[in-house]
């Protein structure tokens, strides 16, 4: 027997309340009577004069208490449980990059799939199976399904090219084991390479024994470790405007020396070619300079090893002038000068009168003007005025004290204590914005996301403050630009890492190595970067190309494909098998409560 909603027992506090109603007397009914001489001295006066009386036996009281008890019991959802008949097989498929190693033909992941299918083949008709894929993110592919559906889920699973999240996968398995689908049995199909990082909680496992309510077995796959990988790739443009410098590191993660040819490509054209002789566990760093105008760099290892996903890394080179900003202002001098002082920013100024037909950059700065509808771009609003998309209440002079969110990224390396504002624009704070810096008269700096666009609001005129004279001014603009706007992403994205999307008001599609994915309107980031390669972001109707980024593995731990044999993970203590609900008493109790309520009404009517 279990209670589905034990919190409903709190309603039992109604019992003392009902008894209290019988104990306390609020008002006595006054009734004229012919002569009270026979009523005088009946022994009830003293008690009748008190405002309380000891509870007396009353059928109505008993019925009301019974109604509360039965009703509360019904609300708690008492359910009779019985042990499940069948087995609940929970398979965790390790889909991390190392499972793509080809030391087991055709790959470790395919071998794990075969083992999983064998396990599923042993299930009976009453058994259920849950399949969990532990890739860059762990998610269930089948939940307590019969064997045929589970087989289809296993067969449709693919290996990733990113570090796996086996910990979450195991926690999901533990949660599934607690469901009453059957006697749980958790089997992890893995190469154990995750234990190479040495970050496991116990014996290499990423979870502690007490975290799971079921014993964990594992079936291991893989036997080799020969792998040379590009483990780092970085590009940096010096502040003095010199050629972009590149840095790459190639590591031999196998147990035998390796000799691999390494080629460097700039915009697809060969830039360098070297043979790297690497001892076991050794690495070599490559440095290079890119020709002016180079937009993309790739490092390619041509040697044959077990894992192909880490043999190539790509990165976008930082280009000058590719952070376009549109400044809409009647007095653009101050902000234009400050924005242009930031590296890589190209500013186009537009007068408010010409805003309607102007071509806008991915980041628009409105100064002293706010349109009725914000554009489909990230926005900085400076000194908002009434009549626009923001609800301006008026102005307040000389706010006394300024408070701020010290840890907010917009205030990184900035000390707002020196800021003096002589006049602040009073705003009704939009529901989508939160204040970063505020005064007693309202927020002075806000940030939020509205309709897929990021918005920063500076609710005062910098010219009416000492901000332009402070070092904080360019830093604040730099921080804002760092959080807003989306040009083409510089550098390389590590596989499995979420990528911030351009302003996304109408939905987008992303073409990647695994195919095309649709991103709903308002989504801020794209997280399905499990496969290495080039990703391109388009508008939903593919009318415009919005951005592109390159994903590489670049994770030494994920490239270390040495298999590990792990001890089975036993639970911390004895585990009670989950029980399945056999009979719910809620309906019966509700009927009982209805019957008691009806009886109470009948009794009350009878007594009147």
């Amino acid at each position: 027997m279990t209670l589905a909603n034990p919190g409903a027992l709190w309603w039992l506090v109604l019992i003392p309340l009902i008894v209290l109603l019988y104990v306390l007397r609020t008002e006595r009914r006054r009734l004229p009577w012919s002569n009270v001489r026979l009523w005088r001295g009946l022994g009830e006066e003293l008690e009748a004069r008190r405002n309380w009386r000891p509870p007396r036996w009353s059928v109505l009281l008993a019925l009301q208490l019974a109604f509360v008890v039965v009703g509360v019991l019904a609300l708690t959802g008492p359910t009779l449980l019985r042990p499940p008949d069948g087995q609940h097989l929970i398979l965790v498929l390790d889909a991390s990059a190392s499972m793509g190693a080809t030391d087991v033909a055709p790959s470790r992941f395919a071998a794990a799939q075969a083992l999983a299918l064998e396990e599923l083949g042993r299930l009976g008709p009453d058994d259920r199976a849950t399949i969990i894929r532990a890739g860059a993110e762990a998610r269930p592919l089948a939940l307590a399904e019969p064997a045929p559906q589970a087989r289809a889920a296993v067969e449709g699973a693919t290996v990733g090219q990113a570090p796996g999240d086996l910990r979450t996968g195991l926690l999901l398995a533990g949660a599934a084991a607690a469901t009453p689908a059957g006697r749980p049995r958790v089997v992890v199909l893995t190469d154990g390479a995750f234990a190479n990082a040495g970050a496991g909680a116990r014996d290499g496992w990423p979870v502690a024994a007490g975290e799971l309510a079921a014993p964990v077995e594992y079936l291991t796959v893989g036997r080799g470790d020969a792998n040379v990988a590009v483990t780092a790739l970085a590009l940096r443009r010096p502040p003095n405007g010199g050629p972009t410098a590149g840095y790459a590191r190639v590591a031999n993660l196998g147990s035998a020396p390796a000799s691999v040819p390494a080629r460097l490509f700039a915009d697809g054209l060969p830039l360098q070619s070297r043979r790297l002789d690497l001892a076991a566990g050794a690495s070599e760093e490559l440095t290079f300079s890119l020709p002016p105008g180079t937009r993309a760099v790739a490092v390619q290892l041509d040697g044959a090893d077990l894992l192909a996903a880490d043999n190539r890394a790509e990165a976008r080179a930082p280009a000058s002038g590719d952070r376009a900003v549109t400044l809409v202002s009647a007095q653009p001098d101050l902000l234009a000068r400050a924005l242009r002082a930031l590296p890589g920013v190209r500013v186009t100024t537009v007068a408010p009168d010409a805003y309607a037909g102007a071509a806008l950059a991915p980041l628009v700065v409105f100064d002293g003007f706010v349109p009725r509808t914000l554009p489909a771009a990230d926005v900085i609003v400076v000194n908002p005025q009434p009549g626009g998309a923001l609800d301006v209440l008026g102005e307040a002079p000389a706010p006394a004290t300024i408070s701020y969110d010290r840890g907010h990224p917009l205030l990184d390396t900035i000390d707002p204590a020196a800021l003096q504002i002589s006049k602040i624009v009073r705003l009704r704070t939009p529901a989508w914005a939160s204040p970063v810096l505020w005064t007693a008269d309202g927020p002075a700096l806000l940030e939020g996301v509205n309709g897929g666009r990021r918005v920063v609001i500076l609710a005062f005129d910098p010219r009416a403050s000492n901000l332009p004279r402070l070092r904080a001014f360019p830093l604040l603009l730099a921080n804002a630009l760092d959080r807003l706007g989306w040009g083409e992403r510089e550098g390389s994205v590590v596989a499995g890492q979420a990528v911030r999307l351009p302003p996304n008001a109408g939905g987008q599609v992303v073409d990647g190595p695994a195919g095309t994915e649709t991103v709903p309107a308002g989504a801020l980031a794209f997280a399905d970067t499990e496969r290495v390669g080039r990703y391109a972001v388009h508008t939903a109707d593919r009318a415009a190309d919005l951005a592109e980024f390159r994903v590489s593995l670049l994770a030494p731990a994920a490239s270390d494909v040495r298999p590990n044999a792990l001890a089975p993970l036993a639970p911390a203590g004895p585990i009670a098998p989950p029980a399945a609900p056999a009979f719910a008493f809620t309906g019966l109790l509700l009927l009982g409560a209805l019957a008691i309520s009806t009886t109470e009404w009948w009794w009350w009517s009878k007594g009147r």
Partner: protein
Amino acid sequence: MSNPAPAARRPLAFVRRLASAIRPVAPAPRSAGLRDEAFLRRLERLALALQRPPTQGLAGDHRSRRKTDAPEFADYRTYTPGDDFRRIDWKAYGRLGTLHYRLGESHDDLALHLLVDTSPSMDWGTPNKLDYARQLAAALGYLGLARLDAVGAGALDGRTPPLPLVRGKARAGRLFDYLEGLAPASAGRPRLVGPSAADATPLLDAVRAYRRGAARGVVVLLTDAFFPDEHAAGLGDLLQAGFQPVLLHLLSPQELAPDLAGDLELIDSESAEVVPASLTPETLARYAERLQAWCGELERYCAARRVPYVRLSTAMPLEEAVLGELRRRRLLA
């Protein structure tokens, strides 16, 4: 003797009369049941069967200890079995075909005094005790008038002028009007009969005030008897003065078996005294015991002095009370 009291106590009496003259069907008076012809005829067959002191002067229908040879005709009534054949008017039988009994003045008559308690406690209950008392008094009075007894009436309030003795069925209307005019004493006003006059004997005063100058006879007290001990003095005074008192104890069904529950504040209709009471089955049982003890004490007191005592519930139909209960208790024969 004129009786201005009813009109004075009923300020709308004139309006009511005017309305009854305008309306095609007059509203039924409170004693409308008494004017039912069949009921009145049945009453006529009854007679008070009380040991009473005979009056002097006019003769009634009761057999007199005095012998008279030539009784004077006074009235007719319908013949009933047991009547003296010699007094049947055969001429009337020849004309009308029905037997009529000649009433003569040489018979002893009975002075019947009807004293109605009009205290506020009587103006209570469903059916109303005062209404019931007035109707019962009217029935008894009509019965007496039909027997050519002398019938008088009064209120136990010491203020309302009594109705002097009247005789004959022709005076029945006057008796009815008097009884209809008896209004309840207003609530809160100190009553003459009741606990508010504990240091005196108000019942005795009221009785003395009535009997002063009244002919001896039967005094029927119609009351709920909610007076503490005065009945002793009042009834004793009547006995000592040569009257035959009869106590008709009227109680409403609500008083006999209260259908109450919960916490109440009972407000006395006369003294406005408030008695809080938590009414439970136990409380009601104790009340019933106390009521029985009180009634029993009253009955024993009356029995010790040969004062007829009849307890009546106002829930009992009037006809059943008169033709049934009072006959059963041998007050009527």
